[in-house]
Each structure stands twice: as C-alpha cells, then as structure tokens.
C-alpha cells in the first residue's frame, strides 16, 4: 500500500513537472517576443558619420544624405536583405557607393549555429563579395562544410542589392525561393529510409539484425557524412518555434523528427535511435570493435539531468529566437568537423568510451531520449484522462435517461 502511494506521488510529481516545463517554455517564448529588434538602429548608429542622415525611398531602401550640402550629390545607398539559412532567416545591411559598387556588408542577425558563420567569415566570403556592382546578380561559391550558411549570406546580399536595382534601374534579378522549393531528394530519401525502418522493426525476419545494421550504415553515409542531417535539440526547437513554416534551408531533419514523433505517438518507441541515427551507428560500430557492454546509470539525478538540459536548451532557444545557437550534441563535429572546443572534447570522450561502454551517449545524455520519454508520458496521461472520462459517461447517460 505504501509503495502504491509512493508511486502515485511520483506520478503526480512527474505530471506537475511536465506541466511546469510547458509553462516555462511558453513563458520564455513570450519574453523573447518582448525583446526589441534594434539591429537596424545599431547599424545606422555605427555606420553613419556625423552630418549624415538617411531618407527612406522604398521599403528597406535608404539614401544617405549629407545634412550640410545644399544640393544632394551622388549619394550612397543603404538596403536591407535576408536569406534563408540552416536555422532560419539571416539578415544583412548593405551600403552601395554612388557607382553601384558594394562597399559594406554588415550582418545584423543570424539564426545559424555560431561556428558555421565563423567559417564563412574565415574563408573571406564576405570580402569576396565587396566591390561587385549591384547591376549584376551576386553569386559566389559556397564555403565547404558551411554551404547552407554561405548561400543564405549571398542570397541576403543579392536580395538587398535587388532593392537598389529595382529603384534605380527598374529591373530585378533576385528570385526569392519559396520555402517549398528547398525540398530535395534528401527529403524523399528520409521518408524512404523511415518507411524501411518501420517495416524492419515490425517484421519478424531472421535477418533482422543484419538488415538493421545495413540500414544504419546507409543512414550514416547519407544523413551523417554526406549531409549531416541528423535531428537535434535545435531541430526540436525549430519545430516548436515554427521556423520550418517560415523557411529553412534543409528540411530533412524536420521530416525525420516529425516521422519519429508520429511513430512514438502510436508505438511508444523511437525507432530512429535503433535503426537510423548515424551517431548511434558510429557508437555501435565502436562497441563491436571494443566488445563493449551496456552499462546504464540508474540514479535519478542522471535520469532527470538530461531532461533538464533539454528544457533549458529549448527555453534559451525560444527566448533568443535562435534554436540553432544552442546545440550541445556533437553531431557537427562528428560529421562535419565544425564546432567549438568543448564539443570537440565531448566527441572524443564519447568515441573513446564507446569502445568500452555500449552507446554511452544514447543511454545517458541524448536529448532525444528525454523527448521520447516526455511524449510517451504525456500520451499515457491523456489516455488515462480519456479512459476516466469514458468510464464516467455511462453514469451520466443513465442519469440523463432517468
């Protein structure tokens, strides 16, 4: 009896935590919306010299005028543009000289993961765009390993230049890509792989283990090394925040995440982990090499800590409206060699531990576990509420009839 009371109390505590988590997320989202976007004001404060002021000639297009001169001379132009990157919109301010050459590019806001833009600027892509004329379309090769961010940046500059083109010369060269044009073969492959995983998991074939290994290998090559399209906390944040509605450069992680959530809703399991996750596949491969055995930590602290991490990360992503800025999974390092020093050390620690402990990241800190637990818990809770209601209904029906 005491045990049942204890487990009931635990369940109630978990229900409370679940509700509080959702409230915290909503609260952070709301507070984030209160933050003013002062990036354009900051740009003007930085780049206008004394005696200069701006005149808006078209939406997002300004002419710089000198207050002291009686007649306005050939003037510089300021325009704002944006492109769609990995994490969402990337916006820039551009200054064009009177001869239509690009003089300055300033990055106003970015939803990319920090190391990706750092790579773009290290490879001097912004500098390569300077000096080009606004009369022609802006284009350049993307930076290897940061192609989506590079393309977003170039696209942003081109869209800003297009405002000047339209106003001064009357023609437009920039074609805004609709978000749906970003869908590509990788997204179809994601669906195909997922269907294969479902079919495999529900089959009773003798060769299940070998087929699963094959599926993992394929997934690692396609979604790991080729495109680094694994889903992570930032994908969850982006999905909740609706970034996918406003346009992202790569839909594959969202498709995989969405399909996983649907499957969890039906079957209480996340088959992505066992059959598709490239990072899990790498750990499993190393486990085979080192003859590793599973060794889960069952202390309550280590069950709740990953959940807390997931909540905190989602809240920060919601507040700053930048889910891609708060990643802590080492997927970028593992498959793209991009990331900071902490994630680099974390990757090495995980890789070496995988030789001795089976799937150490998966069984301890992976946020996808926490997400799966959360969905399953709430699904069961809703089921409980529904079944309680349907039990009460017959009594209500009888009372009505009487």
């Amino acid at each position, binding site marked *: 009896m005491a045990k049942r009371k204890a487990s009931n109390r635990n369940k109630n505590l978990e229900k409370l935590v679940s509700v509080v988590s959702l409230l915290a997320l909503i609260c952070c989202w709301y507070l984030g919306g209160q*933050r003013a976007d002062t*990036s354009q004001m*900051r*740009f003007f*404060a*930085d780049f206008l010299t004394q005696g200069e002021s701006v005149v808006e000639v078209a939406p997002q297009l300004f002419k710089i005028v000198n207050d002291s001169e009686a007649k306005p001379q050939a003037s510089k132009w300021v325009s704002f543009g944006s492109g769609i990157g990995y994490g969402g919109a990337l916006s820039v*301010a551009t*200054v064009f*000289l009177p001869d239509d*050459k*690009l*003089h*300055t*590019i*300033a*990055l*106003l*806001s*970015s939803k990319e993961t*920090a190391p990706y*833009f750092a790579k773009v*600027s290290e490879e001097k892509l*912004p*500098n390569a765009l*300077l*000096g080009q004329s606004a009369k022609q379309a802006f284009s350049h090769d993307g930076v290897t390993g940061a192609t989506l961010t590079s393309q977003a940046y170039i696209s942003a500059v081109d869209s800003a230049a297009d405002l000047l083109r339209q106003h001064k010369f009357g023609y437009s060269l920039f074609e805004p890509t609709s978000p749906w044009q970003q869908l590509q073969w990788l997204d179809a492959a994601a669906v195909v792989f997922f269907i294969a995983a479902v079919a495999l998991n529900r089959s009773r074939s003798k060769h299940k283990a070998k087929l699963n290994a094959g599926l993992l290998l394929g997934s690692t090559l396609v979604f790991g090394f080729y495109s680094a399209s694994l889903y992570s906390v930032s994908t969850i944040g982006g999905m909740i925040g609706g970034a996918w509605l406003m346009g992202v450069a790569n839909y594959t992680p969202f498709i995989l995440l969405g399909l996983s959530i649907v499957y969890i809703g039906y079957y209480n399991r996340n088959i992505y982990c066992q059959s598709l996750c490239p990072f899990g596949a790498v750990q499993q491969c190393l486990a085979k090499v080192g003859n590793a*055995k599973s*060794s*889960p*930590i069952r202390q309550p602290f*280590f069950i709740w*800590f990953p959940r807390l*991490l997931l909540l*905190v*990360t989602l809240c*920060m992503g919601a507040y*700053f409206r*930048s889910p891609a*800025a*708060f*990643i*802590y999974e080492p997927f970028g390092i593992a498959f793209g060699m991009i990331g*900071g020093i*902490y*994630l680099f*050390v*974390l990757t090495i*620690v*995980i890789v070496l*531990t995988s030789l*001795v*402990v089976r799937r*150490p*990241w998966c069984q*301890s*800190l992976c946020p996808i576990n926490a997400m799966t637990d959360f969905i399953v818990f709430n699904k069961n809770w809703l089921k409980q509420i529904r079944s309680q209601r349907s039990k009460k209904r017959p009594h209500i029906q009888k009372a009505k009839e009487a």
Partner: protein
Amino acid sequence: MRKHLSLAFVWIASGLIVLQLGASLFKLANEQTQKQVLHSVSLQTDNSPATHKATPAIDFQRLAEEMAQEKY
C-alpha cells in the same frame, strides 16, 4: 570497471555540455548588449599614405648577453 567508466563518462560529458551551453548563452547575451553589429566588412576605398613606422632600436649587446644567459 565498466560501471565506473560509465559514471566518469556521464560526469565529464555533463560538465562539457554545461560549459558549451554557458558559452553559447554568454555569446548571445553579449550580442544584445553590444552596440555593434554582429559582423561587418568594408571596401578600403580611402588610400591613406603609408606611414613610415620607425623601426625600434635594438640593443644588440644586451640581446647577446641575455641569449647567453638562457638555459634549458
């Protein structure tokens, strides 16, 4: 042994994750309070005359004495 390794792994990984999140938070919070834009590049249009920087005088005698005193 494996249990100890597993526990050590979780502690180290947790520490690294907290450091990483802290660094990201610090960076983003700073961006808000800064008065400057995130990143900018400009064409160098003005040709300022190359200033002739005077080479600092080196006291070679003193340099030789100091090098002689260096020990490994």
